C-alpha cells in the first residue's frame, strides 16, 4: 500500500493544497482506472486534522521555502508526508528538529534492529489506543521485514519485547512508580535480557511515542491515506466516518460551528494578559511567600491536577485492532488523591535533563542526547511573541506555567517556581484539556479542543500541543533515566 510515487511531482508544482498531495493526479487516476483496473483509494475526512479546518492548515502553495524543504526532506526520507508533519508545519523550526530526531530514532544507527523499533513504537502508541500511530507503524514494521505474527499481540512477540511491556505500561501511566528493580529485571533476564544501550533506545522510543500519541489525539490527527481508516475505495458520496471518530464518540456532528465565532468569550485573551502583567509586577514588589506556602502551593496544584476530571463519561471504544497490542487495558492513569495514593515529589534540582539525563542518554546512545536536548530547548523557547491578535507579548511566563503544570502532574517539582502562578494563568477548561491530553489522550475530544482558549489561533493551539508533548516526554524520560542511573550506581 504505497501511494507515494504520484505526489512527488506535485510537490514541485507548489500549487496544490496539502491534501491535494495525497490525491492522485487525475491523469494517473484515469489511466489506472480504465486500463489497469487498479482501485484508487480516496482520502477520508477533511484534511490532516479533525479539529482544525483544512483551510487553516498550511497549503503547500503558501508555505515558505524553509517549510517546503523540510517537507521535501521528510518525504524523501519516509516516502510519505504524514498528517502529523503537516499539522506541525505551523511551526517549521520545531518540525525540523522533530523530524530529524524521529528519523534518527527509527532509521539511523542504533542498538535496536529496525523492526524492533517500529514494534516498540506500536507498543507505545497502543497503550494510548492511538490507531493512527499504530497503523502507521504496522505498515513500517511489515515493510522492514517484521514478523506479522507479532502483531497478534505482545504474546506473539519475543520474550524480550514482552518484558518491555511492563515498562511501557508504567511509563505511560505512572512513571513515578518506576524503580531500579524494573530496570534490573530487564537487564538481567538470562537470554532475554536487554543491554543498557538497547534499553535507552527503547525508553526514548517509548516516551517519544507516548507523547506523540498525546499530540495526535490533542490535535485530532486524521488517518493518513495509506493507512486503515484513512482512505476508501468507495465513491465520494458515501459515509465519511472514520475509525477514530467513532472510537472517540466524536462524529462529524461537532463539525458545525466555527469556534472563533463564540461571542461570550471575547476578552479572554485580554484577561489572561492582564493576569500575566499583574503577576510580573507582583513578583517584583510583593514580599516573598513563605516557604511553607510555596510547598503548599505545589502540593495543592499537584493534588488538584489529580482531581481535574477527565471526560469519564465519554467512554472510548478501543478498536479491536489496536487493543490486542497491550495487555491489561484496565491499567491506566489513575487519579491518585482520590484513591488515597500519593505521587511522590521528584525534585528537578536533583535530577534534571540538562545536567543528568542528557549525559546518560548521550553516553549510551550517542547523538540522541544532543537531538533531544535541542528539541526540548526548541519546544520550550519557541515563541512568536504573540497572543491571539496581540503582538509583542512576552509569553515566557505562560509557557513556563504550562510546562511546569505538566511536570507537576507527574510529581516533578521545581524548587524555584511559584506554583500559584499556574492557578492564575491556566483556567479550568484548559487544565481539563491538558490533563486529558497528557494522562489519557484517547479521551480528548473536539469539544475539549475547542473549549479552551477560544480566541487563540489554531497555530497557537498546536504550539500548546507541542509544549505538552515535549513536557510529557521529558517527564517520562526523567523518571526512566533516574531509575537507570540508580541501577547503574
Amino acid at each position, binding site marked *: 500500500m504505497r501511494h507515494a510515487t504520484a505526489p512527488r511531482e506535485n510537490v514541485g508544482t507548489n500549487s496544490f493544497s496539502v491534501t491535494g498531495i495525497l490525491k492522485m493526479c487525475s491523469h494517473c487516476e484515469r489511466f489506472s482506472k480504465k486500463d489497469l483496473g487498479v482501485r484508487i483509494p480516496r482520502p477520508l475526512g477533511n484534511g490532516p486534522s479533525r479539529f482544525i479546518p483544512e483551510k487553516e492548515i498550511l497549503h503547500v502553495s503558501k508555505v515558505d521555502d524553509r517549510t517546503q524543504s523540510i517537507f521535501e526532506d521528510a518525504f524523501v526520507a519516509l516516502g510519505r508526508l504524514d498528517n502529523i508533519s503537516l499539522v506541525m508545519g505551523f511551526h517549521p523550526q520545531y518540525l525540523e528538529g522533530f523530524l530529524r530526531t524521529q528519523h534518527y530514532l527509527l532509521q539511523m544507527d542504533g542498538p535496536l534492529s529496525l523492526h524492533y523499533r517500529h514494534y516498540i513504537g506500536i507498543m507505545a502508541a497502543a497503550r494510548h489506543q492511538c490507531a493512527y500511530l499504530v497503523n502507521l507503524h504496522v505498515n513500517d514494521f511489515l515493510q522492514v*521485514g517484521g514478523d506479522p505474527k507479532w502483531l497478534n499481540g505482545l504474546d506473539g512477540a519475543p520474550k524480550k519485547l514482552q518484558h518491555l511491556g511492563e515498562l511501557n505500561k508504567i511509563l505511560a501511566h505512572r512513571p513515578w512508580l518506576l524503580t531500579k528493580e524494573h530496570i534490573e529485571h530487564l537487564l538481567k533476564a538470562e537470554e532475554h535480557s536487554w*543491554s543498557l544501550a*538497547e534499553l535507552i533506545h527503547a525508553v526514548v522510543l517509548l516516551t517519544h511515542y507516548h507523547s506523540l500519541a498525546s499530540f495526535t489525539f490533542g490535535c485530532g490527527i486524521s488517518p493518513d491515506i495509506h493507512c486503515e481508516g484513512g482512505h476508501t475505495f468507495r465513491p465520494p458520496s458515501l459515509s465519511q466516518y472514520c475509525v477514530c471518530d467513532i472510537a472517540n464518540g466524536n462524529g462529524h456532528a461537532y463539525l458545525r460551528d466555527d469556534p472563533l465565532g463564540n461571542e461570550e468569550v471575547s476578552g479572554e485573551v485580554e484577561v489572561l494578559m492582564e493576569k500575566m502583567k499583574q503577576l510580573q509586577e507582583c513578583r517584583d514588589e510583593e514580599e516573598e511567600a513563605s516557604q511553607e506556602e*510555596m510547598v503548599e502551593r505545589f502540593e495543592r496544584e499537584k493534588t488538584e491536577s489529580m482531581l481535574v476530571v477527565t471526560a469519564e463519561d465519554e467512554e472510548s471504544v478501543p478498536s479491536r485492532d489496536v487493543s490486542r497490542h497491550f495487555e491489561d487495558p484496565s491499567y491506566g492513569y489513575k487519579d491518585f488523591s482520590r484513591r488515597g495514593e500519593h505521587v511522590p515529589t521528584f525534585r528537578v534540582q536533583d535530577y534534571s535533563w*540538562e545536567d*543528568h539525563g542528557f549525559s*546518560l542518554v548521550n553516553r549510551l546512545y550517542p547523538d540522541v542526547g544532543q537531538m533531544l536536548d535541542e528539541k526540548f530547548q526548541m519546544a520550550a523557547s519557541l515563541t512568536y511573541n504573540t497572543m491571539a491578535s496581540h503582538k509583542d507579548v512576552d509569553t515566557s511566563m505562560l509557557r513556563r506555567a504550562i510546562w511546569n503544570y505538566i511536570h507537576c502532574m507527574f510529581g516533578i517539582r521545581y524548587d*524555584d517556581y511559584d506554583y500559584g502562578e499556574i492557578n492564575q494563568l491556566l483556567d479550568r477548561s484548559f487544565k481539563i484539556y491538558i490533563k486529558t491530553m497528557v494522562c489519557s489522550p484517547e479521551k480528548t475530544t473536539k469539544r475539549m479542543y475547542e473549549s479552551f482558549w477560544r480566541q487563540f489561533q489554531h497555530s497557537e493551539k498546536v504550539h500548546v500541543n507541542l509544549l505538552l508533548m515535549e513536557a510529557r516526554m521529558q517527564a517520562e524520560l526523567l523518571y526512566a533515566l533516574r531509575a537507570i542511573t540508580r541501577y547503574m550506581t
Partner: protein
Amino acid sequence: MEKMSRVTTALGSSGGGGGSGGAISGRTMFCHLDAPANAISVCRDASQVVVAGRNIFKIYGLEEEQFVEKLNLRVGRKPSLNFSCADVMWHQMEENLLATAATNGAVVTWNLGKPSRNKQDQLFTEHKRTVNKVCFHPSEVYMLLSGSQDGYMKCFDLRKKESVSTFSGQSESVRDVQFSIKEYFTFAASFENGNVQLWDIRRPDRYERMFTAHNGPVFCCDWHPDDRGWLATGGRDKMVKVWDMTTNRAKEIHCVQTIASVARVKWRPERKWHLATCSMMVDHNIYVWDVRRPFIPFATFEEHKDVTTGVVWRHQHDPYFLLSGSKDSTLYQHMFKDASRPVDKANPEGLCFGLFGDLAFAAKESLITGDVNRKPYPGGDRRYPIFFFKKPDLTEQFAHVSSALSVFEPSLESGRMDWFAKTARLYLLSGKPFAELCDHNAKVAKELNRPQVSTTWTMVRIMFSDPVNPNHNLSNKLGTLPLMNSFNMKEMGAGMCPDGRLDRSKSEGRTDAVHLEPGNSHISNNEENEETEGSDGQAEYMFGDAELDDDDLYSVEHDNPGEDHEYTLPQEAFPLRHEILDNPSAPEHLQQDGGDSPHVSGNEAEATCLTPIESCSLISASQPLFTPHLPASFFCPVVREMLRHYAEQGDVQMAVSVLIVLGERIRKEIDDLTQEHWYMSYIDLLQRFELWNVSNEGLFVWCQGCSHGGHLEHMMNWLKSSPHCPAGCGHLCEYT
C-alpha cells in the same frame, strides 16, 4: 549555646595551629553524612569543612584521625527551602562567614559568630530561579557574587540589604561565577550555552569579553591560583580546557578529554599543571590531571560509590590533601600518596598495523636501543618521529618515559597478499551444492598458484561428498588417469615456487603432524582410505582425483623434499599398492555416511539420484575391507587438524572458508571459541583489505545490540549453532 562555644573553641584552636601550610597532617578517611552532599567548602586555615546539600548543612572539624561534626546549621522544625543548598562557600578572609546558594533562588549568608542557634545572617531573594553558584571576593570582605539559572549574576555588599549590581547573561543560565584571584575587579562566568564571559565588577552594563568555550553547558570554571590569566573550564562535552586570558583573544592552551561531563574543576595548589575534576554523571572517581598529559589521569581517587559533587583542596598551599563530598552521603579526605596512579598500570607498548601491511611498534626506548639494526625512518622525521623526548621538568612527576617508534614495512614483493584479496573475492561459500563449492574453490586456489590449498579443497570434497560422483566417473577413470598424472607432474614445478613462504612454514607444521600420528601423516591418511590414485613419490607425492570430470590434480603436501622424505615415502608405498582397489571403496563408505548422517543437504541428496544405488553396493561388496570404519565423521579429526594447521600457519582464510563450506559436517568438532577466533580474525583481515562488500557472498552484518558483527554468511552459520554473539560479549544476537 553549648554548641556555639564548641564552635568558637574549634575555630580558636585551629586558628593557632594553622596558618602555615606545612602544619597539616592526617590520613585518608571518611565519614557518613545523613544525606547526599551538593557542595563542600573549607575554611581558610584548613581545620573545618562545611557540607551542604538539599537536606544537609553541617560543619565538620578535620582532626588527625577522623571527621568530627561541629555544628548543624539546619535548624528549625520545618527547614525551609532556603536550606536546600546548591552551593556553599566559606569566606577566605572572615572565618565566621559562609554563603549558600539555594535551589529556590535565595542567596543566604551565615554568621557563625552569632550567639543564637540559627546562624542565618542575610537573605537575598532577588533571583527568580535556582542559584547555581556563590563566590566571595578573595580579598574584599563584604563582596559576594551569585550566578543563577535565571540568567543574572548579582553582586552583593553584605552591609546592604540588596544587591549593588546586576549583570545580565541575556537569559542564558549561569552555571558558575569565579572572582579572579589576581585581578581585583574581574570575574568569570560560565553559561549553559557554552559561553564564558569576563566581567569587570564596576561595569554591570556589558561584559568585557566573551568566547565560546564548550559545546553545551559549561558547568564550572576555576582561575589558576598563581598564573594570572589562566582559566580552566569544564563542560558537559566531557572536556576540561585551559584558557590563556592574557592575550587579546582567549586562547585554548590545554585540553583534557575525560570520560564524563565535568561537574567541578579545581587547580591543585603549588602544582602549576595539575587540576582535579569530578563528573556529574556515571563516573564516580576524582581525577587529578597534568594538563600537559591529557590522555591519562595523573592520579585517581576511587573511593566514592556515587557521583562526586564537590572537590576542594584542603589548604590553599598544600597539594597533598583533597576533600570531597558525594551523592553517596560520604565526606572523604584523600591523601595524595594513597591515590592510584593509572600511568603505572598503562601498557607502555603500542602496536598497530597500517593499511598496506606496515607495522608500527612503539616501546620504551630502553627496550629497543639494544637493537643494532635500527635505522632512522627514511621517509622524514616529521611524519614518523622516531623518538619522543620530553624536556625534564622539575615539577614534572610523571615517570620520565621516552619511547621509540619503529615502523616496519612489508618487503617489496608487494604482490604477496594479492592472493588473499583475490581468494576472498572469488571463493564461493554457499549457494551451490557442496561438491561444486569445493571444486570451485579448488580451482580458484589453483589459479592463484596455491596448489596445496587447491588440493585441500578437493580432498575435503572427496571426504565429505556423497558417493555418487566418484562412482559416476568410475568408467572414465582408467582411460584418463595416466594423462593426468603426467600433466600434474609438469605443473607442479611451476606451481610450487611462488608459494615458497607458505611452504617453509608448512614443512614445520607437517613434521609436527607426522610426529603426532606416527605412521600416518594426517593427510595421506585420508588418501589411503579414500580412494585416489597416488602417483609418483620422489620429492612430492601427488594424487590424481578420483573424479575425472574436473581436471584437478594436486599435490597433497609439497614438502621440502629433504626434510620429510623419510616419513613420507613409506606411507606413499601403501596407497600405491592399493591404488586400484581403493577406488571402489570410497563410494561405499561415503554412501554409508549419507545414510547415517541426518545432515546431508538437499543439494547432495539430489545428486545421489543420478546414479543407481545398486551399482554402488555391488562394487562396495567386493571391498568389504574399508567399509565399516569410515563414516564421514571419521575424517573429522583429520580435517580439524588440517584447519588448525592452516590457522596456525596464518591462513585463517582457508580455515574459515572450509569451515563455512563444510558447515554442520565439521562444526561440532571444533570448539566455539576457536571458531569464533577464526571468524573474527578473518573478518579483521577482510576489513584491513577493505573487502567489506566484495568478499564471499558480500554482506557484513552487525548485531544492533552489541555491535559485533561479521559476514552475513558467517553470522548466519554461527547463529545457527549458537544464540550468543560470536564476539563472546555475552549478548544474545538475533539474525533475522
